């Protein structure tokens, strides 16, 4: 089988102006000065993507993966080299790009279809199919500006896939619309795979590449650092992510990366949710909800307990606890269950932090945000349930002390 996409010695340079002079007046004023610096977005590279494969383009932000995808799509032109694509190309970079808000859904189907290179006859034939897929039968003659963002995206996707592309270019932005429609989109993409069409997916989700791609390439600062087997590529990608300059070196302050976020935290104990106090030596469970943007495979979750003076009285993390941390995806809950809390009476606060295993990344950090009390029931009785009746018989220091 031949190549569907051949990238031959392709590079892309941009002129990055430190101060941009986008107007004639400013250009005239700054005449003769340097207009900007040459920035290499893609260093010369060769990639062959075989027909019928699903190909993953991995890279972190700014690695040039989107630039390469845009070059393949024909939105940008390479500065040198050439890209050959065999077959109809459809790029799902932004769904509904080019919709005219003033026009109706129907008019936009014809306009967008024409932009994507479909003839009027093709469009007329597929019109009902497009509308049915987008589930917009009732609103197709409504102006698009009244559409919800979900409707907008649905129509955009429906038109884009109706082009009947031989090559489908997908940017990670596809995570849009409601869940049902997302599933529908994914099914459509899977059908494309089964039909033997070529798909190029740009992403930084390594697990997705391992799951659906037959081949993958890794870009790093505009360089092609790996190309071939998806498993190896993912490994290279992870290593480069570690080595990346944006990542702090050991000994430096850790960098913040908010792909993992701590959500609602609930303290559970026999007293129930409404009561925030526990008995000394009683059980305590800390439920930590989280959600994740991209799979995290090196998470360490630490819980610390501070006393009312802010001194840490106890600290434990998932590694110390012997918990085997899987790759964390989507959302869920961690539960720290303490069988007993051997703490004396007092007010306490809990700190939760999520970091990478090597400590170079902080994903999230909730400093002393969750409070609980330890109350000895015996003492509590002494202050509340021991009825005391005070009478004044003699002026004694003892009585006064009691009154207070």
């Amino acid at each position, binding site marked *: *089988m*031949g190549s569907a996409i051949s990238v031959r010695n392709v590079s892309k340079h*941009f002129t990055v102006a430190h101060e941009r002079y*986008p*107007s*004639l*007046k400013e*250009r005239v004023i700054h005449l003769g000065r340097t207009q900007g610096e040459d920035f290499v977005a893609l260093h010369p590279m060769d990639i062959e993507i075989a*027909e019928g494969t699903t190909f993953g383009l991995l890279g972190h932000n700014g690695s040039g993966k989107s630039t390469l995808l*845009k*070059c*393949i*799509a*024909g*939105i*940008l*032109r*390479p*500065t*040198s*080299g*050439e*890209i*050959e*694509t*065999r*077959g*109809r*190309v459809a*790029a799902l*970079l*932004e769904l509904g*790009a*080019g919709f*005219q808000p*003033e*026009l109706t859904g129907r*008019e936009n189907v*014809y*306009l967008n279809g*024409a*932009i*994507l*290179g479909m*003839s*009027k006859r093709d469009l007329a034939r597929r019109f009902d199919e497009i509308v049915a897929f987008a589930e917009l039968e009732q609103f197709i003659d409504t*102006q698009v500006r009244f559409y919800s963002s979900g409707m907008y995206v649905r129509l955009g996707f429906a038109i884009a896939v109706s082009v009947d592309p*031989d090559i489908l270019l997908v940017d990670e932005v596809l995570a849009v619309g409601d869940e049902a429609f997302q599933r529908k989109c994914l099914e459509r993409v899977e059908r494309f795979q089964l039909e033997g069409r070529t798909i190029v997916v740009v992403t930084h989700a390594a697990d997705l590449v391992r799951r659906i791609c037959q081949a993958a390439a890794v870009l790093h600062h505009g360089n092609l650092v790996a190309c071939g087997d998806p498993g190896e590529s993912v490994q290279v990608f992870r290593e480069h992510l570690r080595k990346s300059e944006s990542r702090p070196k050991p000994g430096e302050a850790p960098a913040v990366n908010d792909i993992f976020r701590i959500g609602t935290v609930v303290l559970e104990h026999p007293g129930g949710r409404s009561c925030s106090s526990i008995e000394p030596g009683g059980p305590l469970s800390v439920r930590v909800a989280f959600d994740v943007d991209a799979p995290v495979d090196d998470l360490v979750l630490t819980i610390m307990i501070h006393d009312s003076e802010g001194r840490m009285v106890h600290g434990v993390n998932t590694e110390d606890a012997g918990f085997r941390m899987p790759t964390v995806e989507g959302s869920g809950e961690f539960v720290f269950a303490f069988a007993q809390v051997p703490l004396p009476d007092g007010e306490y606060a809990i700190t939760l932090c999520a970091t990478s295993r090597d400590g170079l990344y902080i994903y999230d950090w909730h400093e002393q945000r969750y409070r609980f009390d330890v109350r000895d029931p015996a003492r509590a009785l002494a202050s509340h349930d021991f009825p005391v009746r005070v009478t004044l018989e003699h002026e004694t220091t003892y009585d006064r002390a009691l009154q207070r």
Partner: protein
Amino acid sequence: MASTSTSRPTRLSTASLGLRERIADIWRSRELLVAFTRTELKVKYKNSVLGFVWSMLNPALYLVVFYVVFQLILGSGIPNFPIFLLSGLLVWNLFSVGLAGATGSVVANAGLVRKVSFSREILPLASIGAALVHFFLQAIVLVIALLVFRYDVAFSYLPLLPVALLALLALAAALGVLLAAVNVKLRDTAHFLELALLGWFWLTPIVYPYEVVAEKLGSSVWIYQLNPVMWVVLSFQRAIYGQVDEPVASASLSGAADTATKILPPGDQWWYLWHLGIVIAASVGVFLIALRFFGRAEGDFAEEL
């Protein structure tokens, strides 16, 4: 598999496409050109009650203003002034509206250019296409005026009109494609053009007759004749308005025929055609240069918008 592969369209993307492929691309995108032109017209009048009537009101209003100022107040002495004015003003409107629209077209469609691949030259061309539709609508005003005044057009010069229109479209397309690309890098271009068009309007014999300036310039008239739009305007005036000079009644008083006010150059059809031919040739040349320039700049549009 090999047979299906060969039937699929193969595209080669390099730093800059050759002129021939570029023109072939534009030709292949002609349906898109129609779609964009329709969209531009539809969007413009979508929520307006009068719709296309607005585009006819524009020349009608100009007509009233210029008639009052030049005919009644200043007394220009051009007979059938409304016909004279409209025959030049409509083509000028086509040129100025089309060129201004084309210049801003790529920037105006930034969202599309950034995310979708298509022949971007279509954007400026569609602006000129929309202006052409307006031109035909405005021409209705002129035709009505001709019928109302029972005006006799110069039938033997009418074949000049399609040629003149072609010359104007070629010129507008050449400048439009060029300026659309320049405007991406220098956003002042659109503002600059607005002023330039204002000056250009008064340099073109639309509200005043050509001969008034030609007589004053004498042998230096060639400078005046460098204005390519003028030849289009003159052709329209010659074919529709048709009066080369005014057979002034007062001429009989002085007994000298040459006191008659000259209005249009006295050349025959071939003289007009020759000059239109030069305009077309020059426009095609500029158009090819514009395509080359646009083609080089286009590869970075998605980043610069």
